[in-house]
């Protein structure tokens, strides 16, 4: 029953605040209610009113009304602390199972809005406190442990504030579209056969790598190693490019899903993941065969990422 009510409630919430990467908090999606302490404060107001009535004391009346209007203003300030805040999920990261999925947000406050003591709470995660100055863009990174492979969404998070007196809580539930990509955990697995390429080939390839000819420049992409960035070019033109080398080594190795002797799908994907990283470290060309697709042989960071992404989504 409770679960059902919860479900209907959150369906209603979801209708009011649809999943989107860009959110502006307004009275549509900001909820406001007294906290437990706020309830106690209302009790105090009633007690004061009773005292004023029974002792016919004008000053106690006055005092009661003063505190009462403070309570009302505390609602306004609490709401104002949250309303108008602009949130966007700017980027998510890519990581391995067991690491942390990071969701980077940009928060932008209105020109006259100081947001104090905002609390981000992701279920089962420590709460994150943020203060934002007026017209400021602040970066907040929320993390959840990556427990499974594939696209992992942050889920519904709550953003709340009890500023200024802790008597009122304003909060909002937020769900975002962008998902983090989680690769399988690299595990060393046994491969039944070694074909096409021998260890010697790899050794040779590594040896000659240093003498590679610069084959060209390509656009920088997330994940490229900093030591391959064309810094000289960056200094003169201000654009990021990555140097590409024409590997001398022509030896190609195929990593095949069906080569592993043991393990279910997830385990095998983990083995594959390990071997992709291993092959990349050795610097050779390699291709990958996995359920549902093939990655043509290539080398370099881009290629590694392509393989890992394929594994994550396999």
């Amino acid at each position, binding site marked *: 029953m409770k679960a059902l009510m919860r479900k209907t409630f959150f369906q209603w919430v979801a209708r009011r605040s649809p999943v989107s990467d860009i959110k502006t908090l307004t009275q549509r999606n900001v909820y406001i209610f007294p906290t437990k*302490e706020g309830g106690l404060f209302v009790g105090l107001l009633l007690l004061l009113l009773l005292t004023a009535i*029974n002792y*016919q*004391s004008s*000053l106690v009346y006055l005092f009661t*009304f003063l505190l009462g209007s403070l309570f009302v203003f505390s609602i306004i300030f609490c709401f104002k602390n949250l309303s108008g805040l602009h949130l966007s999920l700017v980027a998510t990261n890519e990581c391995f199972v067991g690491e942390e999925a990071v969701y980077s947000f940009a928060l932008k406050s209105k*020109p006259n809005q100081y947001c104090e003591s905002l609390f981000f709470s992701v279920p089962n995660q420590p709460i994150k406190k943020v203060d934002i100055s007026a*017209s400021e863009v602040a970066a907040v990174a929320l993390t959840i442990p990556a427990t499974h492979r594939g696209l992992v969404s942050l889920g519904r998070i709550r953003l709340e504030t009890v500023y200024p007196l*802790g008597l009122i809580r304003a909060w909002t539930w937020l769900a975002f579209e962008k998902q983090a990509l989680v690769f399988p955990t690299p595990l060393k697995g046994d491969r039944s056969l070694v074909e096409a390429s021998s260890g010697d080939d790899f050794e040779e390839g590594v040896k000659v790598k240093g003498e590679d000819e610069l084959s060209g420049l390509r656009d920088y992409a997330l994940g490229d190693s900093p030591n391959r960035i064309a810094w000289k070019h960056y200094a003169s033109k201000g654009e990021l490019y990555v140097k590409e080398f024409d590997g001398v080594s022509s030896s190609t190795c195929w990593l095949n899903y069906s080569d592993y002797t043991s393990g279910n799908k997830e385990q095998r994907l983990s083995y594959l993941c390990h071997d992709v990283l291993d092959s990349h470290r050795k610097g050779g060309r390699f291709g990958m065969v996995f359920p549902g697709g093939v990655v043509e042989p290539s080398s370099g960071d881009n290629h590694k990422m392509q393989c890992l992404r394929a594994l994550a989504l396999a």
Partner: protein
Amino acid sequence: MQHSHDSLIPRNALFALLVAFFAVMLPHYSNVSAWLAISSVVIALLRVGIYKGWLPYPNARAKTLLVFIAIAAFYMTYRHQFSVETAVAFFVMSVSLKLIEVKFAKDCYLFVFILLYLCACQFLFSQTFITALYQISAAFVALSVLFSLHKGTLTIPRKVRVIEVTKLIMVAVPLVIAIFMFFPRIAPLWSIPLSTGKAYTGISDSMSPGQIAELTQSSARAFRVEFSGEIPAKSELYWRGLALDFLEGDTWRSSEYLARSFMGRLNEVRTDDTEGQPSYTVLIEPTDKKWAYGLAGSEVASSNIFMSERGYVRFKSNVIQPTRYKLSYDLGVLALNQQSSNTEAPVRALSAKEMKRYLQLPSTGNPQTRAFIKALLAKDLSQVELTEYLMSYFREQPFHYTLRPPRTSGAFFDDFMFSTQRGFCAHYAGSLVYMLRLAGIPSRVLVGYQGGEINEQEGYLMVHQYDAHAWVEVWHESTGWLRYDPTAMVAPDRIEQGLEEAVRDEGTFLSDNAFSSARYNRIELVRWMRLRLDSINYNWQKWVVGYDGQTQYKFLSRWLGDVSFKSLALIMAVLGGVMVTLAFVVLGYSKKRRTVDKVVLEFERFCSSLEKIGVKRAVGETPKQFTNRLVGRFPHHKKSLDYLSDCFYWLQYACDENKPDEVSLLKSMKEKRKTLVRDIKNRRLRTQKPA
């Protein structure tokens, strides 16, 4: 929701908590018993020690022990009382004990709430303007504890804070005033005894030599009077309090016993309309007594007082809060210097019982005085003549008015009349009645106040404790009761100008009271400030403290016609609703952005107007990047777009030497923005139309 709750109190909040504790407790310490006050301070100091890290937190055993000791001591002290004071003392004790334990942020709330309640409790003891100011400030200090728990780490510019606070005050003050004015005042749900057990200064129901002299050293206010018309001459202002008609040794006592005690509250005053007839309204300070003070020949004009059988104004219950009452008076009676409980009626003879009461004397003692009267009686004077003779005797003999009379030994009246001849009103009035009674003339000592100080700024009269006075009323068959003041024979200054003038040479005016500002009345500035402060307090009492159901009704019905409970509630709800909405508008959705950079604002206006046609500036996109992107989409406006972003950079980042004229540039930026947005919109319309 575990975050801010089971965390320890931040140090700045704890500091605020200790300040709030002292601020709220300080005025209460005078109302609770000494041990409680002292131990509360000790506990607070211990807590300061813990805060500073000099002491460890007490363990559970120590805390339990402390609680048991406190409860036992509390029971011993207060077991026989049940009053507001007991309740307040209990709160003081619990808050003090709780202080030692407060450790987590969640403990703060309850603690602060009890402090707030204690702030309000102080109003049951004192209702002056200063008290209100103090208590409300203390409440804000207590609330600042909660604020410091939730405050962020931002450093907000002072200008922003000032604007915020100003706006808040501008919205909050009218709201509070409106609710205060319109909130329906409900009758008490149940009656709680408000006995505060506090000692009050004022006239008591007995007078022994020296008692009034003590009172004359107090500059405390007895009451204030507002006359409907002109204030009568000072020499006519005899504020009759009570009659002392029973002499025992040399102490005069009142034999009046008020059997009648009414239920009901003094605050619910219903005042009568006294159109045409001169009247005065008295605002009396708490005396914890039933008697009220009034001029001779006054008649009751408010519901909280009545005229006693003997013709004195009496309250229906003890005065424990500043209370207002109204009387009407007859100018003729006042001027005639004569009075009776009901002058219009023909003079009624005294009954045998009354005769006996007003002739009562100890059977022996004071032989010298007795001989003196006996000799006088032999002259065969009429009663009036005899009284006049005694009065002139005081004038002609070398009597001296002093607040420091020499001690008398043995027979008081003999000593005073024939050897020392130095004394003040109580001596003169007492002796005169003694002698009149010896001569068989019914008479009584009247105590009350005489004169008063006029507050020119507000036009009301202030009567102080040092205006306490004693005089005599004598019964003559033809005229009824007549007032005689022997003091006026000795020291006319006392009656005409007040005590300060009368004892000027002696220098005893408020001599025991070095800090009383009344003592420095001679200094013009002190006097001005004293009167100003008093008039603030008076208006405070009149308009805020005294704003009860009756006043509310009278005040509001002047404009709104007949107001009922229901209409009041409706008015309040509507007014409150409007004001809260207004508060939301002013505080929440304010479009004014004075505090922000004008240049940034200008550019943001541009962005937001483009947002309406579906072009959005991405988060983190610089103005230049944005306009470059726009050029791609609206190539016709390249020049204007570039100009706009250039303006932004010039205004924001240009060095001092080639900084353009900011005002004109900002103005042209604004114009550019407007035309640009209009052009873009128009172009869009034109391109859309054919399609």
